[in-house]
């Protein structure tokens, strides 16, 4: 059922929730968290749809905070709160309140949200677009245990990543990071299968996709090797290649759905690695509400450092619009030469790269 409230307050909304629950005959609530979605009118529909789907796994109270744009001085001076309370079939397994903020109240959204949070349950804030530069110190973000941003939706994703790293507070997380969980788990599984020393790696994906940077930073941090990035037409991430002393390990996904895992000396294997819907990403994000230290470490590794370290191996490959045919043989040579040179020493790592560059 749906209740529309115009020019209202949080306490009236709370009352509408109680009345609504009683009307549909389910006075007891077993919701596990409050999800606050901060968005504009344009993105509200998709975000709410994803959240409702995710709420099948995580029954939650979803508060959608829509900050309306005021187009005249009169509008700006007038503060108004409209709410749409949805329960039962209209709100998947939880409860949904869509809050529309007009005028001055836009700057005081936390005063609307605070009384509507579920008692004692964790709070998650998600900005599908236009996340604040410092989520933890945002008035709404400060209410939450977990703050979900999405750098993929940003105008300049890479700069955005750097900003996220500078402002990182435990509890921050980003959907670009969530997107690469299947990749990370498959790469880890691949390394379970071969005992080897990784000497370098390369991550390939579409342009303006911060997942490429995050995956590269994670690999660089965990493996302590230079990781190069290269561009492809997508969709999303397309390939990860790890050069090891036991031959290359390649996870290749050209079509965004079925990937091939190739390990030297082993048959190629098909691996399901589908690009996931936002609902699935949100569901994964809500599964654990403790700070994600691995994300923090990967994020803080820094894109600049990634570039620097990659540059020590093969300077020319960092430049964009690299002709693929030049890079590939170079990488091959580096891979084959690697077993002769132990990976740990930077000096020996340089040797094959120079050879490659000389070609």
């Amino acid at each position: 059922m749906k209740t529309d409230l115009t020019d209202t307050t949080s306490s009236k909304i709370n009352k509408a929730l109680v009345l609504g629950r009683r009307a549909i005959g389910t006075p007891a609530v077993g919701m596990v968290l409050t999800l606050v979605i901060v968005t504009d009118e344009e993105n509200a529909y998709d975000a709410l749809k994803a959240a409702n789907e995710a709420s099948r796994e995580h029954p939650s109270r979803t508060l959608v905070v829509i900050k309306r744009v005021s187009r005249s001085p009169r509008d700006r001076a007038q503060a108004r709160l409209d709410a749409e309370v949805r329960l039962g079939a209209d709100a998947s397994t939880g409860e949904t309140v869509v809050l529309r903020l007009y005028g001055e109240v836009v700057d005081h959204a936390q005063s609307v949200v605070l009384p509507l949070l579920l008692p004692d349950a964790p709070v998650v804030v998600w900005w599908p677009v236009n996340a604040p530069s410092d989520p933890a110190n945002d008035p709404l973000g400060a209410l939450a245990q977990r703050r979900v941003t999405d750098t993929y939706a940003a105008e300049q994703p890479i700069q955005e990543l750097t900003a996220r790293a500078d402002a990182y507070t435990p509890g921050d997380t980003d959907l670009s990071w969530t997107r690469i969980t299947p990749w990370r788990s498959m790469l880890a599984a691949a390394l379970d299968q071969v005992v080897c020393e990784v000497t370098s790696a390369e991550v390939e994906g579409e342009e303006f996709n911060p997942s490429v940077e995050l995956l590269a930073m994670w690999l660089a941090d965990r493996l302590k090797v230079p990781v190069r990035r290269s561009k492809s037409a997508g969709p999303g991430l397309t390939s990860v290649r790890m050069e090891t002393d036991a031959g290359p390990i390649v996870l290749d996904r050209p079509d965004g759905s079925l990937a091939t895992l190739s390990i030297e000396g082993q048959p190629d294997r098909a691996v399901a690695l589908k690009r996931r819907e936002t609902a699935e990403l949100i569901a994964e994000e809500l599964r654990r509400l403790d700070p994600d230290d691995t994300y923090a470490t990967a994020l803080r590794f820094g894109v600049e450092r990634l570039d620097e370290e990659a540059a020590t191996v093969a300077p020319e490959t960092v430049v964009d619009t690299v002709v693929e045919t030049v890079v590939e043989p170079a990488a091959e040579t580096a891979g084959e030469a690697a077993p002769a040179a132990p990976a740990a020493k930077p000096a020996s790592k340089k040797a094959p790269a120079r050879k490659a560059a000389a070609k």
Partner: protein
Amino acid sequence: MSAVHGANPLRDAADRRLPRIAGPSGLVIFGVTGDLSRKKLMPAVYDLANRGLLPPGFSLIGFARREWADEDFAEEVYEAVKQHARTPFREEVWQQLIQGMRFVQGDFDDDTAFEQLKSTIEELDKAQGTGGNFAFYLSVPPKFFPLVVQQLKKHGLADQKDGSWRRAVIEKPFGHDLVSAKELNEVVHEVFPPEAVFRIDHYLGKETVQNILALRFANTLFEPIWNRSYVDHVQITMAEDIGIGGRAGYYDGIGAARDVIQNHLLQLLALTAMEEPASFDADALAAEKTKVLGAVKLPKDLGKSTVRGQYAAGWQGGAKAVGYLQEDGIDPQSKTDTYAAIKLEIDNRRWAGVPFYLRTGKRLGRRVTEIAVVFQRAPHSPFDHTATEELGRNAIVIRVQPDEGVTVRFGSKVPGTQMEIRDVSMDFAYGESFTESSPEAYERLILDVLLGDSNLFPRVEEVELSWKILDPIEQFWDTHGKPAQYQSGTWGPVEADEMLARDGRSWRRP
């Protein structure tokens, strides 16, 4: 497993998004055309793959008498998955799985079939990179266990070499008494070492059953009262609403006690009553379970503290049901129990004097499995007798299935001007307050087999101890009287109610 993960720089204990993925491996299912395989095993394999928990190149080999090609087998799996899988069907996951699917046709005594199985495994090692790691799931009637196991040995399929593993997975029944259980164990352990044998008790794979440990040992609320000072008695119930169906051949002569109490209910009892393990690893858990099962004591007068019954004709949930003795293929003189209730005591400091009532049966009121810990009444009540007339005993009920969850029952004042106290329940349901939908028991158990994690599998000692508890009861039943009759669709014979009434208690209606 841990050695490999320790060496893998991409693995980090703090990185909790990364799931536990099994290493390179394959699963061989004997009796793949059976019901269990179609309804549970194949869908579980698909669900695991869908959740990204199977290794790339995971292979599934079916072994059965039917004349199938690999494609027919794949088709059969496809149908089973479409019908019974928990997670939605995805083409790319299916494409990943289908590459490693093979079928081997043959009888269990057919040497060429086992040679073919061997070459199929070798072929998969090459084509799919399974690394020689295979688990053999014996989804076959127990009389074939020795044969299949011997064949595996004869054809060198059970040999663990070059760091690869071979594991055997067996289903209940693990024998029909202590002697036969020991024989079976000898047969299996002659071929597979004890740590490579996984006995499936699917109850232990259920979230709610694992939650018993979380409930007891992760909270401070329950453990202080989890003893004879506060607990009056414990009731463990597993009720089915169906009859024996087409399983007459298997069921007659086995009966409810052997089929259910020996494994499921005694395992639930062990988890409910055991002391806190030193850690959550397999050895520590098994040690505590063994300890408590070893402390179980049978009552002196078995005639007064056990009841068995057979369902008689009646109406079950609006459908007419025939009695057990009228079922097809059942000897009208059969003394097999379809209902069994027993009273056990645990001889240790925590539980001395607290009876554990275990009951199971077919054609009962509804399908339900639960553990009810019933507490003593308050030693003194400041309220009038009339105020607390409707107040029962406090209870914590762990609902294992269906509608998984935990209920706490306690008294509360009825709104109004008078003081009147009545039972109310506080409910926690998995369905409505959890952050992840519960996986099927078989998913968890198959994954654990592939990972080599034996936490949730009963060990030889536990199986043998359980038989030691049940054998005297079965022997007593063999020589004394015959099963009581109870109407289908009710909660069992009146004798069972009388058994509790003698102790001043009554069965919960689950």
